[in-house]
């Protein structure tokens, strides 16, 4: 049986990579690339941290953060 450690942070979150540029919707300079789970599976998105507008959206890894033991 697996024995996972208890989380050490209050919430879980995906690491966000800052992306240069401004949001075409609200003009804020807070774009970031990260992974989201949405209808259709995992997506790699570039979103505005202010208004959450998706600047780009492309299919992400099929299983998200999970990497099967047999994966290369």
């Amino acid at each position: 049986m697996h024995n996972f450690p208890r989380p050490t942070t209050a919430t879980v979150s995906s690491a966000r990579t800052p992306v240069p540029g401004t949001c075409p919707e609200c003009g804020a300079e807070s774009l970031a690339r990260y992974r989201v789970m949405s209808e259709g599976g995992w997506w790699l998105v570039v979103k505005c941290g202010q208004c959450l507008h998706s600047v780009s959206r492309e299919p992400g890894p099929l299983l998200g953060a999970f990497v099967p033991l047999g994966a290369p």
Partner: protein
Amino acid sequence: MGRTLFSVDVGGTFTDVVMVRDGDIHVTKVPSNAAATHLPVIEGARRLGVQDAAVFNHASTKGLNAVLTRSLPKIGFVTTQGHRDMLDAGRCMRPMDNQTDARWHRPFGDAARPLVRRYLRRGIHERILATGAVLIGLDEAQARAELEILKRCGIQGLAICLINSFVNPAHEQALLALAREVFGPGFPVSASFQVGPRAKEYARASTTVIDVMMKLIYDDYAHVLDSQLRAAGFAGNLNFADCTAALIPWRDAVSAPHRILFAGPAAGAAACRGLGAAIGDGNLIGCDVGGTSTDVTVLVNGAPFINDSFEIEHDLLVNTLSTEVASVGAGGGSIVSVSPSGDLRVGPQSAGATPGPACYGRGGTRPTVTDACLLMGILDPDGFADGQIRLDAAAAGAAFDSLECRMSQAERVRFAWKIAQNNIAEEISRCALRHGLDTRDFSLMAFGAAGPMLLAGVLELVKARRLIVPPHPGLFSAIGLLSTDFVYANSRSQYLMLMPDTGPQLEAIFGALEAQLRERLNLGDAAAEVTIRRSFDGRLAGQSWETPFINVDPAALKARGPAALTDEFHAEYARRNGVSFAQIPVQAVTWRVQMIVATEKLAWRALPAGTGKPTPIGQRTLRHLDAEEITAPVYQRAALGAGDTIAGPALIIEPLATTLIIPRQVARIGTVGEIVITEAP
């Protein structure tokens, strides 16, 4: 001498304009203009002469089409934090046909065509409990920051819907004030406590979103329409019809425009009720066969079924009283196609107004029901839509030939015509069965431009008592707008089990609603002419859905207390569903008060008696109706008198419609000019 009355029904293909002057009905049809909807209305008003009109009653599909095609303004939506995706989830109900289809998407969901994109839906830190108590106070700083973001995104309007605001609207009121500060006065904002303080947050939210969108769509339109009508010499009152075809002064209508979204189909039911009263027939099934669809309405004892909400698309709800109208994708413009398995199909896709059926010669290449009717000889190529459109039989034939199937052209045309009729008959039977009714007890009312040429065959299929083709069937819905009253309404939700000791609470609720309505309307001298109608939406204990619009008789309530309401609920439940559960207690959910101000209506005039056996003006060859070609006499409707009898097969033509009487049927002209078709004895 009566006043001059005007009405207009703006459809996707044509704008129908009706004028009643000195009791005579005058009509005209103007091609609709999607880019400038008001122009055909003004054109129709000028054609008939609007100068001396006392009223101009208006119904339109402009808003409905904007939602269906998603030609919508960009709006923001704010709600309680954690609930912004309710606009994506809806009521989590799948259509029965798609229960096991993994690829099905909710049509208004984020993966399809959302009304408000997700980043424009913002959560506000606050929470009010179902009791009305505040669990989390409104975080004004966070709310202001969210509104500022929406402002930077360039939204054109804002919808506010917080959880449980129908019990306690304090946070919505504060947000509304904040929105006025951030966006400035005059910015279109709809808050759910104003739009309709009803229980169940999803329907309340979708209604609020639709409301602010309709404000943006209808406000400019109504102002332009009013000013241009004034410029054309009109000095009367411009009214809009709501979803039950009740009239509202236009300024009131655009203040809560979600109520006028579905007015056109409701107007058809109002027209059926008006004509039914004139000819003494209250049990009617109205079939409005238009270009894209057939709208079916059932009237029992002269009353259509009224619902407390309607769906624009599957699960896309609008909370407002609305006439129950079922729609099936079978109309004159319904496209005939071949399925992958080789079946001939009719609809639900439609050629619409553009390009229209192939025979319109406007670029359409796919065959439609109208093309079939032309090839069958039912339609006159030179007399369609009062000669405004010349029909091209060669183009219609080529469109049918282009179908990839082994049938002959004659079989394709004949089967397409029959399938369209079967689709309509199926919907009629479904509507009747849903209410536990037998179609043999009802008369079919055929209207819409395509109704009179399609429904003679449907009469055979559904075994209704008779088929009635009203005068001016192509504009009958517009005529319905001259058959209704002004209705001002107020409602609120409050859950209450109807028990012997709840009488005082009922009086308090209704009294408060009436007082609010009187204050809002400031009726003055007109107060004496007002009829007040109280009603409630209730449910059997344990149900999660309501039976709407249960009438409350004040005298019965005073004499018998809440028992009068429960008895009325069980009677209405039986009328709607054909079954009653009188032993189960009743819970009231939403309370309603309506103030009805009677208006001058169209009075159907008796038609002078005819000769009994009218003379045809010619004859036409009907093809594909039977195995052999049939020669049918053609009659001019305007030349017919009351009591005239015509045996099928025959055609009765008028400028904007053609009535087909098939073999083994007989038509008799009724007292106000209606054509009554029955099986030949």
